């Protein structure tokens, strides 16, 4: 009797597993919100995406916690930045996730490896702070590089899920059309910002400002990843007195004390830019992310 019940149970379970795997979308595990947004843009209703971090977290300092290991275990594809951004936790997730599908290409997609990085190949040692010898990993902040990443990601989706290859490529070409149009709008809108000088908290903005022709004249951190010291801040005050910057910029996950202090001392406007999807209320996808960051920067004028 018990045997028969067990047998039935097994049958039902087995059926459940079979049918769910047949119907399931492609499961994508994304490390950062911007890559989650991109995977959704390109994958549409053929993928379901989970994300490891949110806009208020510094993605460098994430723990390889069990819930994330479980998500990697169940993923068909892992989409992360690479270039050592997730060095502390992604290798652990991939190791403990016990999922051979995503331990290397094609199941593992590293966005920063798809484009040329600023500062790649430079000599680096730890006395220079938290620098990445592979280059600055925050490449998605340049919309052109973002487009290259999108193309590679669409191709990869097609490789992994060949039944839907045409679907992904079509989604990409639709995205490309809208994105290029948006870039034109952004560049027109941001034209007044060209040549302006900004102080940043951390170097994560390099790509964004390079694209818009904005000058990063100083950073609140004396070295990347090293918190501001009072001597460094007072040096910045002197620098700002002789040559005032247009704005002081930081991301939602950074400590605002240094920037706020400098803004108060110098009367320069301090702006929290969204940085990634979810970084401000308006930023719900990649388009609104760049919309809002440019609006926020233009708004810094009113502070004067």
């Amino acid at each position, binding site marked *: 009797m018990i045997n028969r019940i067990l047998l039935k149970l097994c049958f039902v379970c087995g059926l459940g597993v079979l049918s769910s795997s047949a119907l399931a979308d492609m499961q994508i595990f994304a490390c950062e919100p911007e890559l989650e947004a991109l995977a959704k843009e390109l994958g549409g209703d053929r993928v379901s995406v989970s994300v490891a971090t949110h806009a208020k977290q510094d993605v460098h*300092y994430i723990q390889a916690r*069990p*819930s994330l290991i479980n998500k990697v*275990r169940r993923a068909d594809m892992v989409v992360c930045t690479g270039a050592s951004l997730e060095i502390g936790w992604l290798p*652990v997730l991939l190791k403990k996730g*016990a999922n*051979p599908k995503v331990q290397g290409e094609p199941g593992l997609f590293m966005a920063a490896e798809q484009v040329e990085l600023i500062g790649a190949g430079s000599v680096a040692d730890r006395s220079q702070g938290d620098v990445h*010898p592979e280059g600055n990993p925050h490449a998605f902040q340049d919309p052109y590089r973002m487009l290259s990443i999108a193309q590679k990601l669409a191709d990869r989706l097609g490789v992994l899920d060949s039944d839907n290859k045409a679907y992904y490529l079509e989604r990409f070409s639709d995205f490309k059309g809208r994105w290029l149009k948006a870039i034109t709008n952004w560049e027109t809108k941001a034209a007044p910002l060209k040549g302006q000088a900004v102080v940043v908290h951390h170097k994560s903005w390099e790509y964004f400002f390079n694209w818009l022709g904005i000058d990063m004249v100083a950073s609140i951190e004396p070295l990347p*990843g090293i918190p501001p010291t009072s001597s460094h801040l007072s040096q910045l005050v002197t620098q700002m007195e002789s040559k005032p910057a247009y704005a002081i910029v930081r991301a939602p996950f950074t400590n605002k004390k240094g920037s706020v202090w400098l803004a108060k001392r110098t009367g320069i406007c301090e702006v929290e830019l969204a940085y990634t999807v979810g970084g401000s209320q308006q930023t719900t996808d990649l388009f609104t992310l760049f919309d809002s960051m440019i609006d926020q920067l233009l708004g810094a004028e009113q502070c004067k």
Partner: protein
Amino acid sequence: MKNTVLSAAITAACLVSSFTYAQSNNDTSFNPKISVILDGVYYSDNKGGDGIEHIEEMSGILGSHGHDEEEHGHGELKRGFNIREAELTMSGTVDPHLDAWITVAFSNGETEIEEAYFETRSLPSGWKMKAGKFFSGIGYHNQQHLHSWAFSDQTLAHQTFFGDHGLVDSGLQVTYLPATPFYTLVGVEVFQGEQDKFGAEVEHDELKEGAGPRLSTAFLKIAPEIGTGSELQLGLSLARTGQHQEDHSETPDVELLEGDILLWGLDVVYKKLPTGSFGEGSFTLQAEYFNVSKELTIEAASDIDEVGEEVTGDQDAFYLQTVYGIAPRWSIGARYEMAGMVNELKEESTDKLGDSRRVSLAATWQPTEYSKFRLQLSRANISEFDEDLGKARSESFNQIYLQYNVSLGAHGAHQF
């Protein structure tokens, strides 16, 4: 001489590591990832430096009785400055199927392989196998290396059941991570069983040499999804050895025992993820409980009547600790520990071995990910069993640790 060897090894490792670093820092490199971690403490107590010894002699059912046992490890602290260990770790991917990891610890002129294992990376369906020498997966704290502990010293619970290093041994581990809606990990291990405490081996002509593997464990961990801001992990552990040996000989009398020990344990870890930068606002609450019972038989004795008699014992221990990220790069922690709420040995009569407790407070400053500095204050009441009086007495003392921990080379893993 040993110092020269040590410094040469470290220098070599640094050279190799800086070389790999300059070449490439990603996992596609053929060289193993190399790191060297240096841990040292300034230690003092108000027992003339004997605090550590009292803790090592803390009464418990797996303690040695009536004979000297040579022990080594992190415990040999002197008052003043101590380098506890320099830990050299190399890890990497062997081939498409295997990863490997080697940690060598240099301490007090001794070199010891702390961990050396390989594990699978290509088994399907969430299976993994690990073989070599490694920290057992039982509980939560046991798997952590000294340098990632939230406090400067080993917990009383691990100390009393496994000794300074925790349960680390040569063996085989199999784990299964099913694709369930929340994290579920099941593991079993078989170890050789070369331990100082749980699963000790005695070399004596009158005891047959144990055949390994002599120690086995099983564990289950689950982490229900409780949102993106925090994490909860619950664990259940079992460990057993059927060939635990003890030497209770007191010259000229011989008394040798062998038998079973069974351990079960519960662990819970709750972490609130930081909301500020560099760990500010993070909160960890972690607790573990272990219960051990032993059933030994006297296998050989000078008094022939004693042979075949049973010696049984029961003991438990727990710790509860919490760490809070009070400011960027600063955290404070508190730990309460107790060993031996139940602590008794039954031979002809029952010996109550008494309970030991300790309260510790720690403040840790971590200027970067590669260095940390800690001040820890502890108040300990340690129970020791006096064989002559036949009862337990308690030693109370204060301890202070000033610890530094610096790492070179490969970026450390942010383990949960």
